[in-house]
């Protein structure tokens, strides 16, 4: 839960900055203000969210306990310290911070150590569970994407710190940004989210576990796209060749993977045994829709030649429509579920217990999710239209939607929506708001 709490604080902070007009589109995509905002979102929000979710969920995927139940907490401290150093480093580039401290060197060390602990812990858990099922294989490839993203990001930070001035590092710094973005958004965040969503959607809707040729194709195409972009892109840049064909090839592999994934998800919804679809699954569909829309936009813009000009808008849709939308939707299931385990698990069989679904009030959460998605799509449209004021209005709406969802999560955590008579059966315990859930169940 501490991962989720830190992640949500980062998301709210980032949306506040966007609503205040900080960074893109008021500044360029590579301006320090935009870089601060982007890393607050992808490191502070999405990566912490996914790490926290994987510590809970990888043991479910592989039916084995986490390799270490104690490593997640020091990893979180290191990642938060690294994030703070990185953001301060960007503020120094901006001139907002004047202290001449080695922020980027510190960020490199802390983030590399923190993510190494995460990779070690999850990697050992997966390794011990071989042969892996398909969802776990997605996570394994996603972790390779994380390793690549961190390695390239650290190279960038060391160049900014002045610690890495080899020609190869400088070339990668100058032209390697697309690799960093593809490995991070496409490899780490998207492939992992796909794998997790396959299993979560099947589990919660009582749909059959997917082992279709299309599922295998999604993973293979996604892994190849990641490999081509990272390995091929790096080689092209280091050999001073044009890397554009390499990225186009990676895109040509990645786009069919998105379409096949969307078909698989539609199949899960169609073949579900539970007729009623809970809000978290409905909102996950909106997120997958955003991913498909982003893929279609990438193809259309690449063929019409506007991809570079609209890269910010497309990235926004991927980050806030797809990844953040799916993240918030699944948090709306994970938080009540973990809270139920903490509060009611110990009294099961001794006293009547509510259902997990009794911990949430979907009629209240629905409007906040609706506001969130409409705002995210409106903000994307505003970026396409280069309308900065409309973007700020949409970002403010998105902030309001997120705040509403967070409030619903806090209510679930506090058991506020459970009828008072059933809230605390004898022997149950009130779970703390933030701490306690870093241990594996």
């Amino acid at each position, binding site marked *: 839960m501490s991962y989720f709490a830190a992640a949500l604080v980062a998301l709210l902070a980032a949306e506040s900055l966007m609503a205040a007009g900080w960074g893109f589109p008021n500044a360029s995509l590579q301006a320090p203000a935009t870089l601060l905002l982007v890393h607050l979102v992808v490191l502070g929000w999405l990566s912490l969210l996914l790490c926290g979710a994987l510590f809970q969920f990888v043991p479910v995927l592989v039916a084995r306990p986490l390799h270490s139940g104690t490593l997640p907490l020091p990893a979180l401290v290191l990642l938060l310290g690294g994030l703070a150093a990185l953001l301060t480093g960007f503020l120094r580039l901006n001139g907002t911070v004047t202290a001449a401290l080695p922020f980027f060197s510190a960020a490199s060390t802390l983030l590399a150590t923190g993510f190494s602990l995460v990779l070690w812990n999850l990697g050992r858990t997966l390794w011990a569970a071989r042969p892996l099922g398909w969802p776990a294989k997605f996570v394994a490839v996603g972790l390779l994407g994380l390793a690549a993203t961190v390695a390239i990001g650290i190279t960038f930070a060391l160049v900014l710190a002045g610690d890495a001035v080899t020609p190869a590092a400088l070339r990668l710094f100058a032209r390697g940004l697309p690799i960093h973005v593809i490995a991070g958004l496409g490899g780490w965040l998207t492939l992992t989210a796909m794998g997790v969503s396959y299993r979560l959607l099947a589990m919660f809707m*009582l749909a059959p576990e997917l082992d279709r040729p299309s599922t295998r194709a999604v993973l293979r195409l996604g892994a190849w796209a990641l490999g081509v972009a990272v390995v091929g892109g790096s080689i092209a840049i280091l050999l001073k060749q044009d890397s554009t064909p390499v990225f186009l090839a990676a895109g040509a592999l990645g786009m069919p993977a998105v379409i096949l994934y969307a078909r698989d998800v539609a199949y899960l919804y169609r073949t579900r045994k539970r*007729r009623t679809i809970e809000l978290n699954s409905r909102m996950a569909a909106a997120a997958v829709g955003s991913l498909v829309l982003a893929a279609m936009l990438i193809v259309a813009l690449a063929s019409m030649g506007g991809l570079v000009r609209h890269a910010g808008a497309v990235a926004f849709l991927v980050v806030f429509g797809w990844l953040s939308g799916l993240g918030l939707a699944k948090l709306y299931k994970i938080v009540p579920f973990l809270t139920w*385990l903490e509060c*009611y698990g110990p009294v*099961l*069989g*001794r006293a009547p217990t509510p259902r997990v679904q*009794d911990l949430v009030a979907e009629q209240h959460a629905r409007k906040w999710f609706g506001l969130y998605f409409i705002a995210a799509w409106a903000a994307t449209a505003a970026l396409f239209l280069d309308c900065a004021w409309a973007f700020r209005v949409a970002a403010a709406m998105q902030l309001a939607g997120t705040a509403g969802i967070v409030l619903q999560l806090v209510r679930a955590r506090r058991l506020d929506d459970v009828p008072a008579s059933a809230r605390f059966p004898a022997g149950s315990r009130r779970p703390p708001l933030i701490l306690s859930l870093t241990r594996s169940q």
Partner: protein
Amino acid sequence: MNSGEREFPVEHARQALRTVIDPELGYNIVDLGLIYDVSIDDAGVAHVLMTTTTRGCPATGYLQEGARESVARLPGIAGVDVVMTYDPEWSPQMMTSEAKRHLGIEEESIP
């Protein structure tokens, strides 16, 4: 204890197990089909063979402990032995008609 005398406590044990719910599906574990077998031996020890809806379910330990607790409180039960199995794996068709109705699952939709 002859077999006739054992039937009654077994039914009591199944009734007691109905106080344990699967938290996600919100229905008792007996009617969900998660209890594969219940027997009581001559020493009064209850043997429960059960599963979970999905392998690796985070609630597994609590469900196992809940099953044990619910039966252990019955009079005449000397001990409870709960064994978790995934052979066969659970599927929705193992639910009773009541459980299916509760979850909005149509009988004919089950293959």
